[in-house]
């Protein structure tokens, strides 16, 4: 009897520890975009000018992409491009500050789904191909943006 009860107590404690650990990791995981530790990605993308070019070509693609063009309709494109450039610049370790709203607030009115988020992503990849960004660098940028899916997709 005594042996069984201390065994179950040990198992119980182990489960509790695992539970706390998982909860801890869950608590730490934030809904903000990840950020680069240094500016190597920022430089690999061509710094602010390079990023602005990638953003500009991406926006042009979104405007004609059947899957998402209605969602980018009726927005001030200069302001949009400028905000996106600031955001990409900041998250890739560049000397910029993105003054915009958090991803959830900025996008919830659009009711985006995963397919649309992926369409935006595919067009961004195409834009980076056009500019000649190497594939591994492309993936490093998208890796920083991928977690935004959680906040941007509300449908």
């Amino acid at each position, binding site marked *: 009897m005594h042996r069984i009860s201390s065994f179950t107590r040990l198992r119980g404690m182990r489960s509790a520890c695992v539970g706390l650990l998982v909860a801890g990791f869950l608590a730490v995981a934030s809904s903000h975009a990840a950020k680069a530790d240094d500016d190597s990605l920022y430089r690999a993308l061509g710094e602010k000018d390079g990023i602005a070019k990638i953003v500009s070509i991406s926006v042009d693609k979104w405007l004609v992409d059947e899957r998402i063009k209605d969602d980018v309709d009726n927005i001030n494109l200069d302001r949009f491009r400028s905000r996106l450039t600031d955001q990409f610049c900041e998250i890739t370790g560049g000397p910029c500050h993105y003054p915009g709203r958090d991803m959830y607030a900025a996008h919830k009115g659009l009711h985006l*789904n995963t397919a649309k988020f*992926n369409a935006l992503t*595919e067009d961004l990849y195409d834009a980076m191909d056009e500019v000649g960004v190497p594939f591994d660098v492309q*993936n490093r940028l998208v890796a920083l943006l991928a977690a935004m899916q959680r906040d941007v997709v509300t449908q």
Partner: protein
Amino acid sequence: MRHSPFRAGLRSAVCAAVLSFGWAPASSAWADDLFDSGKLLATGGVSQIEGAGGGGLVPWALITGYGTDNGIGVNAHYTYDQLSDFSLNTGGVAIGLFDRVELSYARQAFNTQDAGAALGLGEGYTFHQDILGAKVKVIGDAVYDQDRWWPQVSVGAQYKSNDRHDLVKALGATDDWGVDFYVAASKLYLAQSLLLNATVRATKANQYGILGFGGDKNDDYRPEFEGSAAYLLSRQVALGVEYRMKPDNLSFAKEDDAGDVFVAYFLNKNVSLTAAYTMLGDIATFKDQNGFYLSLQAGF
């Protein structure tokens, strides 16, 4: 690409199948939403030899098909693997539902070719196996959880039924059918362009079930580890390596672990081609069964 006639044709076939179950779509916009082909290229994996979504040999945690969490994806595959003394070919279909559930059916044919004569079975003697698979994603997202440490985890089962009932029993197997259970964990380390997968499978299958289930040496479920690593060379090409541990239940023939190196080419969201060099070890006393593998997957 999104409105290719091929995809439209396949979609019509699936719509017809779905309609026959009494679902009436209000308009084709409904079909566009449901069969959204919305996943990023290559993120449904390819079809492994038992018909589940994953690599060439190993089932992954990814759900097959290009349907997003709001949609459905369907595909069919055919794989031909010419080994030193045998050939293994598999054909199957699979469906991915809402990036949550995967159902698959595959039929394997293991042809003993010339070795059949040496084994006393007759040249070209073939074992067939029907495999019904189910997989459920339990936690995580391999693609989007770039800022989290945990992988996408899925649990799955494969019900396998061999048509050579008497023969496998004669070879020492306990049953001509069996169920494999597995847990797979997949994670895409996008910043490193690397996908890693680890699978643990509880199985009694001899040579994937081709030589029956359980045996005179061992008749218990054993956990077997399977792993894959794939490097993304481009959006369309992945290079990978896999390793699959196997049980060794039959005394008449040693069974080895298996491995392969592969290159998967994703032409678009409708077609992918995987070429591999497979090393399946000793099979039914024939040593070092290695050879080229080619697999075609078509769907949306």
